[in-house]
């Protein structure tokens, strides 16, 4: 017996409409002289652009390392039974989440106006190990790192805390019952399981950090966008150079998304989701949709607490 599948006539209609629109858009882009494909080609791999890309990557990586490290510490402080640590963590998050990143970057950039000199020593008795002008220690790059990293720590702290809380308390009890200490339990049992919940929104954070690095232009950074801005204020090739920036940001974001996929898979090992997917692969795939749907949902829920 031969089964005749359901015909999807409307799929053909919608495909036709989308094809026409896509063609029209492609045509308008290709034929528009204001885009300046030649300029894009010229600047896409120019040394100046590549230097900007490198700085953007450096800023993203270092700021995220500070952000995640600080976030883990803040989250653990927040959940600890020591009331002082909890309050300090709460205050930090309140302060850094409650003020705009742009303002924070400006303050770090102009720190010299607030504290002209930095001292390292013992206060009140006059022992000084170092005494230097602020501007010599905190340049544009350091200020960018501090601004982006310390701000990110406040957001990351909340993500990590959500992840830690999501782990079943029975896990901690089981670990305690075989004699594991609090810190061993945290490192070997709770954090690895929390990672499964933390990774997807942290991927979002990394991707938005990549783009937030462009804000450092206000304290004369040397990232991708700032470099290109400097060029187009002289040459007025605004749109082509902005498109060059977009192409690079899109490329980097794609690379990050792929990395995120593999990280998620690693930290998802042994979970029902993975097992379900294995079963689904064996039986034909219907279950995979459920697994993916759950993943996307938690992704959204944790990502919504965002600027």
């Amino acid at each position, binding site marked *: 017996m031969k089964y005749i599948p359901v015909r999807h006539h409307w799929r053909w209609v919608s495909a036709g409409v989308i094809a026409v629109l896509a063609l029209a858009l492609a045509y308008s882009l290709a034929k528009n002289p204001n885009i300046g494909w030649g300029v894009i080609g010229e600047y896409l791999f120019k040394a100046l652009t590549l230097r900007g890309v490198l700085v953007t990557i450096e800023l993203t990586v270092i700021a995220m390392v500070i952000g995640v490290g600080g976030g883990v510490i803040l989250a653990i402080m927040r959940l600890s039974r020591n009331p002082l640590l909890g309050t300090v963590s709460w205050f930090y998050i309140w302060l850094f989440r409650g003020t705009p990143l742009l303002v924070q970057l400006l303050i770090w950039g102009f720190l010299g106006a607030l504290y002209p000199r930095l001292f390292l020593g013992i206060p009140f008795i006059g022992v000084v190990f170092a005494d230097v002008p602020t501007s010599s220690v905190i340049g544009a790059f350091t200020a960018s790192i501090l601004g982006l990293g310390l701000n990110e720590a406040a957001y990351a702290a909340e993500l990590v805390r959500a992840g830690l809380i999501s782990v079943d308390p029975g896990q901690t009890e*089981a670990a305690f019952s075989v004699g594991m200490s609090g810190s061993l339990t945290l490192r070997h049992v709770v954090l690895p399981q929390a990672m499964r919940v933390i990774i997807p929104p942290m991927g979002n954070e990394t991707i938005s950090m990549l783009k937030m690095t462009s804000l450092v232009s206000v304290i004369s950074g040397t990232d991708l966008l700032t470099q290109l801005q400097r060029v187009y204020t002289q040459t007025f090739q605004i749109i082509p150079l902005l498109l060059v920036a977009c192409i690079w940001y899109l490329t980097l974001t794609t690379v990050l998304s792929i990395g995120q996929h593999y990280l998620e898979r690693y930290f998802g090992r042994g979970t029902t989701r993975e097992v379900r997917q294995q079963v689904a692969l064996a039986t034909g795939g219907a279950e995979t949709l459920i697994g993916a749907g759950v993943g996307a949902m938690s992704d959204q829920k944790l990502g919504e607490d965002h600027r």
Partner: protein
Amino acid sequence: MTTSEAQSQGEANAAQGANGMPMVVAEQVWKSFHHLEVLKGIDLRVERGQVVVLLGPSGGGKSTFLRCINHLEKIDAGRLYVDGQLVGFREQGGKVYEMKGSEVSRQRAGIGMVFQRFNLFPHMTALQNVLEAPRYVQHRSLADATEEAKTQLNRVGLGDRMSYYPAQLSGGQQQRVAIARSLAMHPKLMLFDEPTSALDPELVGEVLAVMTKLAQAGMTMIVVTHEAGFARGVADLVAVLDSGIVIESGPPKQVFEDPHNPRTKEFLSAVL
């Protein structure tokens, strides 16, 4: 229990403290959560090598008492000794000091616990679950800890499931891994908190079989369970907890067939 098995496997208890002291002594143990009093003066003695089954209606305090024995809950009043030592506290010069976290961990390492919901570490294979504590709490070498884990997994009949993650195992298999995880620390006392309540009926038997074997091997065990068959067949002593006190205790035959307390009769007729 056969003598030869008891000698070969009663390793921990016999070797460590044949000082004649009971394994567990509870004297007037009180515990409340906020304003709810859950334990109102528990008295209980568990001798070395004994299997004690705690029975009673839910909310009677069985699980709470069990969790007090390895200090997952801190008692409010009374004294609780395991192997002659206060649990969670240190007695010095007539004063009782609360223990630091590291001391509590050391005490817990000698007391195994099996949970109703298994609580296996889901990101580790069966083998990794079992070798975790020998490796990182006792700081044994990886080879040594692995050897220990394999021995214990074979003992619960899961030698062929070592590389499986918990989610790939049945409930009964998971609970047996959890038992192996506790046994790998060579505990002198094993606590079981409703170990078969979360299992499908056809999987209960395999877990009870492992527990019976363990009891025959001379392990001191305190078991919270509703499995009357296990209590009758394996327990040396049955204690009935209701409203935070032990209302009746004695050999299973006496408690099941000739209970003194009317509340016990009521409870037994409801569950049997």
